[in-house]
């Protein structure tokens, strides 16, 4: 990342434009005579550094990443938070900072001078701080390792959580490149962390083991907030050739017994051995990187061991190499084959294939070159040729089998699909039948309803006649009673 020289705008452009009379720049920044931090440009204006990933910034406009990080000002959810207010906050914060670029400006100073609610001011402040538009001094790069936060990751970061969430990160750090995450500076004692460091994600603090134990962190942070981060021992100590050779020997002898491997290597923990072994660049050798000279010699050693021991059994290696999983040969009582299978499984198919091929060719060379002991010398030319031919035959057979298997699978899938199609057709027919029956039931319901209605109407008419009759009777009775009274 290089640093952009952003010239302080001339005071004229900072005064409010006639269309926005509400802009308040309380004091125009006076360009005081200060020695610039870089080779002085021809103009007399001061030079303020901002990181190159913030070059989108301009006094008059709002960039889309500002919209993304601080959506509260742009989504018209609240009546007085609008882009104009945002620009007012942003520009006054930046101009305040630029009045004295060598000093870090604190949030409290700023918010005392800005009218508005402190929450949103803080978010704007944090946003500007994170993007290096304020409190950015390129001369203090080594302090940037402290928080281990990557500002460049912010450019790629998704706006998840909006302005509030990510506003709280990256107080001081403006790391221009943070590829080397293993270098961690303790925020407490400012020393390089080795072995293990304690990292608190909540407050973004990295402490070395000593500071953690001493409790040298801010109040409010409890010891349970920290998690232990192991620095990979690659950074700590590099494996020497001797150690790597020992490791490989031990692995071949003890295979899975990492405890003994670790003992054999001497001075390395089990985990170290395993991690280093996995990282050993077997692959690069086969793709022909010859500049890794020591790796080459390592590989040759392995190869020679294999050559001496594998002999006529080399044709067996291609088949286990095709399988990623450990092949059944691992359990074979033949320890040599087991080792070869194990190594080839670890290294991967292509690598193992190449190794086998190379082994075979070396064998042929060796055979033509001279005598070798332990079984190779006993085999004559014919045997070797036969073995090579057998190898090739095995390969072609394998390929044929593969294609057979493929064809079988495709046929099976076709049949299955046909089955499913038939089932679907049957279900459709059933569905149709169901619908018809349903319609019939519906019709019958309607008929029944009509019948019920007619019955009810007839009944009601009869009851009405009855009622009328009864009321008449009641009236007569009433009259009679009245007459008697």
């Amino acid at each position, binding site marked *: 990342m290089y640093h952009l020289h952003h010239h302080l705008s001339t005071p004229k452009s900072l005064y409010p434009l006639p269309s926005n009379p*509400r802009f*308040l720049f*309380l*004091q125009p920044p006076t360009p005081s005579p200060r020695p610039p931090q870089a080779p002085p440009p021809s103009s007399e204006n001061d030079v303020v550094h901002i990181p190159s990933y913030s070059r989108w910034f301009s006094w008059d406009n709002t960039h889309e990443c500002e919209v993304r990080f601080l959506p509260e000002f742009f989504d018209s959810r*609240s*009546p*007085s*938070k609008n882009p104009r207010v945002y620009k007012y906050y942003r520009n006054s914060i930046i101009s*305040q900072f630029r009045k004295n670029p060598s000093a870090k400006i*604190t*949030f*409290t*100073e700023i*918010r*005392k*001078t*800005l*009218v*508005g*609610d*402190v*929450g*949103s001011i*803080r978010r704007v402040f944090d946003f500007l701080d994170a993007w290096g538009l304020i409190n950015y001094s390129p001369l203090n790069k080594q302090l940037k390792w402290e928080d281990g936060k990557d500002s460049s990751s912010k450019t790629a970061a998704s706006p998840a959580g909006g302005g*509030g969430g990510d506003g*709280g990160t990256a107080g001081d750090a403006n790391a221009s490149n943070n590829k080397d995450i293993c270098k961690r500076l303790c925020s407490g004692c400012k020393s390089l962390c080795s072995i293990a460091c304690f990292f608190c994600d909540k407050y973004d603090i990295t402490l070395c083991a000593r500071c953690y134990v001493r409790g040298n962190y*801010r*109040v*409010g942070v409890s010891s349970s907030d920290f998690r232990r981060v192991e620095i990979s021992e690659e950074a700590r100590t590099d494996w020497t050739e001797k150690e790597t050779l020992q490791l490989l020997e031990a692995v071949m002898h003890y295979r899975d017994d990492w405890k003994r491997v670790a003992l054999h290597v001497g001075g390395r923990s089990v985990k170290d051995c395993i991690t280093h072994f996995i990282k050993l660049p077997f692959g690069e050798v086969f793709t022909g990187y010859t500049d890794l000279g020591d790796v080459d010699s390592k590989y040759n050693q392995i190869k020679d061991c294999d050559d001496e021991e594998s002999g006529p059994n080399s044709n067996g290696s291609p088949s286990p190499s095709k399988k990623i999983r450990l092949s059944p040969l691992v359990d074979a009582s033949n320890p040599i084959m087991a080792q070869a299978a194990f190594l080839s499984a670890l290294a991967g198919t292509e690598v193992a294939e190449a190794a086998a091929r190379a082994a075979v060719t070396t064998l042929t060379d060796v055979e033509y070159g001279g005598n070798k002991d332990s079984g190779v010398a006993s085999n004559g030319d014919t045997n070797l040729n036969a073995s090579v031919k057998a190898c090739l035959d095995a390969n072609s057979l394998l390929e044929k089998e593969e294609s057979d298997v493929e064809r079988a699978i495709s046929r099976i899938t076709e049949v299955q699909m046909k089955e499913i199609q038939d089932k679907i057709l049957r279900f459709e027919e059933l569905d149709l039948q169901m619908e018809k029956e349903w319609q019939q039931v519906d019709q019958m319901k309607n008929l029944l309803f009509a019948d019920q209605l007619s019955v009810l109407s007839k009944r009601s008419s009869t009851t009405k006649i009855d009622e009328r009759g009864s009321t008449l009777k009641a009236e007569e009775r009433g009259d009679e009673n009245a007459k008697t009274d």
Partner: protein
Amino acid sequence: MKTLPSSSSKAPVKFRMPTKENLVPIRLDIELEEQRYKDAFTWNPIDPDSEITIFAKRTVKDLKLPPPFIMHIVQSIQTQLAEFRSYEGQDMLYTGDKIVPIKLDLRVNSTLIKDQFLWDMNNFDSDPEDFAKTFCDDMGIQDPEVGPAVAFAIREQLYENAVQSVAAAREIRLSKKGRRGAEYVPASKAGGTSLDLMKLFNNKYSVVRKRKEWDVYGPTVDLLSNEEVDALEAREERNVRSMI
């Protein structure tokens, strides 16, 4: 059903700051081990509570205060916010006229400000921040800290008025409940805090202010020298001590 207290009023309105943005004025005054921290700012009640802790930590870090301050700051802010929220569910009285006088009498660093003006509590679009900005512009105030202080003072007084109106509304409701709504409670009792515009203009219905009130209603901005500032501060401290 609530009966409307007067013909010109509308249904009661939920409590909120009568400004465009519903911001709470927060005042902090914490003293710990010989160190005093005084502050006043506006807070947005929509912000989550985690924001309070973040703010407290930032402030303590920026001002290099000792760490115990963080807890006190957080507690104080939370108490004031809780108080605000407790009013939030309740009703405010919404009578026709709600013009209140706002008095400014504050000292920010070396600027002394005295002012008085009328503010319409019914105007929920009012903006103390805007007022403060214009005030500073017009009066040519150099100190950038004056603006927020003015806005804060206005907001505080509006808040107090709003709280009073909630209390008044509650009183009315209680009294109404007691009398089963049979008696008619006059509106003027409820709007005790607001000035009756008629009375203000002396029953003459003239909008022009009387000459002797001109000084009162105009802003005075004084710039004090350092010695005067020190003297004033010492006097203030003595007052505070004597009160304690």
